[in-house]
């Protein structure tokens, strides 16, 4: 009886050792593959060809989940302050529209050469909460062309831009053009210091 127990124990130990060896071999293979990609230039960094599908999916999903995990709620209730929306428009039209376009307004053509390419934002506030939009504008997104605007702008200004994005789905191309005409004169007021996040 004791003899049989010993055999069983040894068998279990051997299976455990085999499993550990297998696991280790797997980990070493993954690390080796990763290093091989880094060292050999196998990954195509050109922005003239799209990502292969699985890489595009992984990067995009990582970005969405990262933003959702980090953003804090930003209260921007339904009747938006029109002055705040206009202040946001002034910044958006000058600094955001070249890459993100607007209602009836195209992005600059060169922007189509970016990967990931900046999206039009007309319904962005239906996909993202105000807090998430504020977070993206403030902190930017690594490995995209989206900068951390906190380097250039105050939190109050970035909240105005967020308010404008919340107002954007209801803004017609005609209304956008009217805002453009009304704001044609350059703003005289001095900008507040950036938030330096």
């Amino acid at each position, binding site marked *: 009886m004791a003899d049989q127990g010993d055999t069983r124990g040894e068998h279990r130990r051997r299976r455990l050792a085999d499993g550990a060896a297998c696991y280790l071999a797997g980990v070493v293979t993954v690390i080796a593959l990763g290093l091989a990609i880094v060292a050999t230039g196998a990954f195509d960094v050109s922005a003239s060809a*799209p990502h292969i599908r699985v890489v595009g*999916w992984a990067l995009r999903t990582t970005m969405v989940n990262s933003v959702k995990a980090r953003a804090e709620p930003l209260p921007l209730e339904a009747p938006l302050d029109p002055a705040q929306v206009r202040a946001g428009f002034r910044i958006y039209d000058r600094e955001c529209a070249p890459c993100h376009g607007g209602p009836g307004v195209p992005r600059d053509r060169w922007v189509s*050469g970016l990967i990931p*390419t900046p999206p039009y934002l*007309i319904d962005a506030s239906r996909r993202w909460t105000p807090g998430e939009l504020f977070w993206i504008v403030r902190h930017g997104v690594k490995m995209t062309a989206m900068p951390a605007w906190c380097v250039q702008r105050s939190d109050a200004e970035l909240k105005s831009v967020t308010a404008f994005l919340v107002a954007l789905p209801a803004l017609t191309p005609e209304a956008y053009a009217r805002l453009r005409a009304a704001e044609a004169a350059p703003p005289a007021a001095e900008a507040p210091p950036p938030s330096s996040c």
Partner: protein
Amino acid sequence: MPKLSSRLQVPGLGFLAGAVALVSCAPASQAQRQADASVERGRRLVGQFACGSCHQIPGVLGADGTVGPPLRGLARRSAIAGLLDNTPENLTSFIRLPQSVVKGGVMPDMGLTEAEAADAAAYLLSRS
């Protein structure tokens, strides 16, 4: 005897099939290759010009926009923008200069060339 005839038949049939394939498929496959290349270029352009931020497009990652109409089954629609007959030529003109069809619409003239618009149209019409 049966052995001999079957030996003769097999290469004979093969040759016949090959000849038929050459005659019937050679010109078609050339056209097909061009069409496939156009669809492939169109797939890339639809991504680069961010069509998916306003439209839902099957097969394009993240193309879940709700601003314009979903583009699934575009080939089966009867009209483009509710105004033009749904032909590849009309779709090409609309993609290139939507503002000349729907003046003041949300979709801007995005600066695609005629050839680029034709490729994008070919891709969108190829989606089921």
